[in-house]
């Protein structure tokens, strides 16, 4: 390889990480290898130290840079995802361009995954050698600075999104809140009481909804969906599709006469979870924000029964001009924002998928959401818990936990809220009906503040808890003596017996699932979903709010199942992160970017269609391709694709990577045989 690296002075630092690395890798031997064997490659100093990331460790590097005139630094320690920033900072303080430092991961990729000391040490040496060869080809880079637009897009008007929107708006910055349902409020608006305190969900939610609806800095876009997102952190252009409401939002006063006069009654599959009714023109619930109805063209007589039918809503609408517009079209609006918070929430597991639980086949098998609606005083039964006949109160009720959750046949995860929700529902059923209630659980999970106390309380109320995953719910007796009408068949695992508990009603605590369209949504916003569909946070522990895409944050259940307090906390945290960006005014980005060497570019246009961020464009006059550094995200696909080798990628250049390959193959590289 052509070598103009001779004049460099490299420092190599091998971290013990206490015994984390030193317990498996002979760190002294690695440092000695660097100092002696790599002398010819420019290594002038090599040290090992207990904790390189400590202040003393960093000072060691800084001192060497100043005193020994280091021009390159290699730190063999943990993953760069942990401490690359730390060591770049140290270099920067000592006057060395931060991008002339390189990390060799000998903890995550060596010490923690291998056991044989000799082999691990040999591998560590190869990795250090690779890093030295690479760093010799590093170039000084400058972070890219981008300005931050003050507006923020919040997607999803459930409790998490509301919290984010309100926090940002309170700080005085504009927020666009996009919600695809006719009203904000989300799932929380469907519930009656909230665990463990049994506050009324509406009482604590509606003030927040009202505040968001009237806040001068919040613009609501309900019955709308984000269609397209372009740009990058600080500078996003978002296209929002406004679905037609067939009602003029600016004119409608929300008087509700149209709803009253509409003759079409349909089952409300959304807000009432399929057990209540709404009209063809409706607001999902009384406290809806905005309080403007939506007309459903799939059931409205005007559309279904041929044009011109009915029109009662229009006839009785008191506004001038008339708020009903039958031929309203969908609209598209464009927003400019600097940051995006995704709080798109969750969907309920479809309990019909578990055939043996009989939901959909056995009338008196309900889902938790159906029961929530039944318990709600504003719900379809006015707060009464009744069987499917709409009248009879059940005398014996079985509540099945973990429906669709913790089950590899459906969803592998724990939905985290079902234990507490099931305990709450047990309490509510007992309170409303006095029924005997049986909760069937695999494990009771009540780990937050006051949760276990609530479980104790419900135990004390006389609810039966049977440990066992329900095998089946059946309406067929085993023999003539069995009396149902329904049987919950389960192994009582604590008694070691198969039991069949006769009940009148079964409630399935269906789990939380990612939104069915989460993958598509993730794609729109350029963020990743895990294989099961939850949005992936930047770091599972240290950054559960940001995503891998700068300027896009997640809050609430879109990132994973969580309860209301956790959703609120995450919503607020996302707001804090956004506000911090807005206040900084500009942002430094990793200078990993592709660029075109125009002299070598032949304008073949092979790379032109490769960039999903539209950073590549063709300059017709000069017949060359150009890359917009601000749009480029640094993936390097075009670098690898350019047939002429005319595109180079800073931070990950061909020279760096080829040198690293050679370096890593240190112990197997053979002396070439002379020709």
């Amino acid at each position: 390889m052509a070598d103009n690296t001779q004049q460099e002075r490299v420092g190599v630092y091998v971290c013990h990480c206490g015994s984390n690395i030193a317990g498996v890798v002979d760190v002294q031997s690695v440092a000695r290898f660097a100092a002696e064997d790599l002398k010819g490659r420019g290594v002038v100093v090599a040290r090992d130290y207990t904790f390189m990331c400590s202040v003393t460790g960093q000072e060691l590097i800084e001192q060497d840079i100043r005193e020994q005139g280091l021009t390159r630094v290699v730190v063999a320690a943990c993953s760069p995802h942990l401490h690359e920033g730390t060591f770049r900072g140290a270099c920067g303080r000592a006057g060395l361009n931060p991008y002339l430092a390189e990390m060799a991961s000998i903890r995550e990729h060596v010490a923690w995954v291998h056991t044989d000391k000799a082999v691990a040490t040999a591998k560590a040496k190869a990795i250090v050698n690779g890093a030295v060869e690479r760093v010799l080809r590093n170039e000084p880079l400058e972070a890219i600075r981008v300005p931050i637009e003050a507006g923020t897009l919040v997607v999803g008007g459930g409790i998490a999104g509301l919290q984010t929107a309100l926090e940002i708006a309170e700080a005085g910055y504009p927020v666009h809140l996009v919600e695809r349902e006719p009203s904000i409020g989300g799932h929380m608006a469907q519930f009656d009481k909230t665990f463990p305190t049994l506050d009324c969900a509406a009482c604590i939610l509606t003030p927040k909804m009202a505040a968001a609806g009237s806040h001068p800095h919040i613009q609501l876009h309900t019955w709308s969906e984000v269609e397209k997102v372009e740009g990058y952190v600080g500078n996003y252009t978002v296209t929002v599709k406004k679905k037609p409401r067939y009602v003029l939002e600016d004119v409608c006063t929300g008087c509700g006469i149209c709803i009253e006069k509409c003759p079409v009654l349909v089952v409300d599959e959304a807000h009432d979870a399929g057990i209540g009714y709404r009209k063809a023109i409706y607001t999902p619930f009384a406290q809806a924000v905005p309080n403007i109805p939506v007309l459903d063209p799939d059931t409205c007589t005007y559309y279904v029964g041929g044009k011109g039918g009915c029109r009662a809503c229009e006839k009785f609408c008191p506004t001038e001009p008339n708020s009903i517009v039958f031929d309203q079209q969908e609209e598209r609006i464009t927003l400019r924002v600097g940051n995006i918070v995704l709080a798109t929430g969750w969907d309920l597991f479809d309990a019909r998928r578990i055939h043996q639980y009989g939901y959909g086949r056995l009338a008196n098998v309900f889902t938790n959401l159906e029961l929530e609606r039944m318990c709600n005083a504003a719900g379809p039964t006015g707060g009464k818990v009744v069987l499917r006949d709409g009248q009879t109160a059940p005398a014996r009720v079985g509540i099945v936990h973990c429906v669709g959750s913790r089950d590899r046949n459906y969803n592998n995860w724990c939905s985290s809220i079902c234990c507490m929700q099931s305990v709450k529902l047990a309490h509510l059923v007992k309170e409303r009906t006095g029924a005997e209630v049986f909760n069937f659980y695999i494990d009771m999970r009540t780990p937050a503040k006051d949760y276990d106390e609530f479980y104790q309380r419900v135990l004390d109320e006389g609810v039966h808890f049977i440990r066992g995953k329900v095998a089946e719910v059946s309406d067929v007796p085993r023999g003539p003596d069995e009396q149902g009408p329904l049987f919950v068949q389960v192994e009582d695992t604590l008694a070691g017996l198969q039991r069949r508990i006769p009940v009148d009603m079964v409630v399935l605590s269906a789990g939380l699932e990612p939104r069915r369209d989460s993958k598509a949504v993730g794609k729109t916003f350029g963020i990743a979903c895990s294989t099961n569909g939850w949005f992936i946070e930047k770091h599972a522990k240290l950054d559960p709010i940001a995503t891998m895409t700068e300027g896009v944050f997640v809050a609430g259940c879109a990132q994973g199942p969580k309860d209301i307090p956790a959703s609120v906390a995450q919503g607020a945290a996302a707001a804090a992160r956004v506000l911090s960006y807005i206040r900084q005014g500009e942002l430094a980005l990793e200078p990993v970017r592709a660029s075109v060497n125009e002299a070598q570019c032949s304008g073949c246009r092979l790379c032109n269609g490769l960039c999903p961020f539209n950073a590549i464009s063709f300059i017709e006059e000069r017949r060359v391709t150009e890359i917009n550094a601000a749009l480029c995200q640094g993936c390097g696909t075009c670098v690898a694709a350019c047939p002429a080798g005319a595109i180079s990628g800073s931070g990950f250049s061909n020279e760096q990577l080829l040198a690293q390959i050679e370096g890593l193959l240190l112990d197997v590289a053979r002396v070439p045989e002379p020709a």
Partner: protein
Amino acid sequence: MSTVSTPDAQQDRGGFLARVMAATPGDNRLNMCIQCGSCGGSCPSGPEMEHTPRRLFALIRAGESETVLRSNTPWFCVSCYYCTVRCPQNIHITDVMYTLKSMAIRAGLYRDPSPAGFSETFVDYVEKYGRSFELGLATRFNLRHHPLSLAGMAPLGLGMLKRGRMELTPHRIDGMDQLGAILDKAKELEAAA
């Protein structure tokens, strides 16, 4: 059953689970049991079993090999596979039951010889003729294990004969030598494993 672990079991702790898993083909995942009881709840013979399958798995983990292999549980398995398809951990429960049966036969531990006897009688016919032989099977099995019930079952047998649903002589396949060689080799390989 005893609630105190035997010294033997103490020594073998963990080893028994590994042996059961190794003797069960494929990714049987027995180690993944979360003791939820969906197997015991689903089992049509569950009420008759000394231990539910779930409990049996706990005993396997505890190394209680003797208790496990003496248990009637695997013999009451009807191979309906409800437990297998409902298991939230995708454990191949029915296959594990087969493993336990063959281990129990080899260890000579199962107390009620009748189910094992049925299986063994069946196997004898297959190994002799290459086909099963219902009349012989029923007669020989009942003669050995339930001599008293034989008379009671006679009407059924006669009914079968009358309807041409049972034959008096077994059919022997042509490739009996070949089959014999294959089975001998298979037994040799199983013993070696």
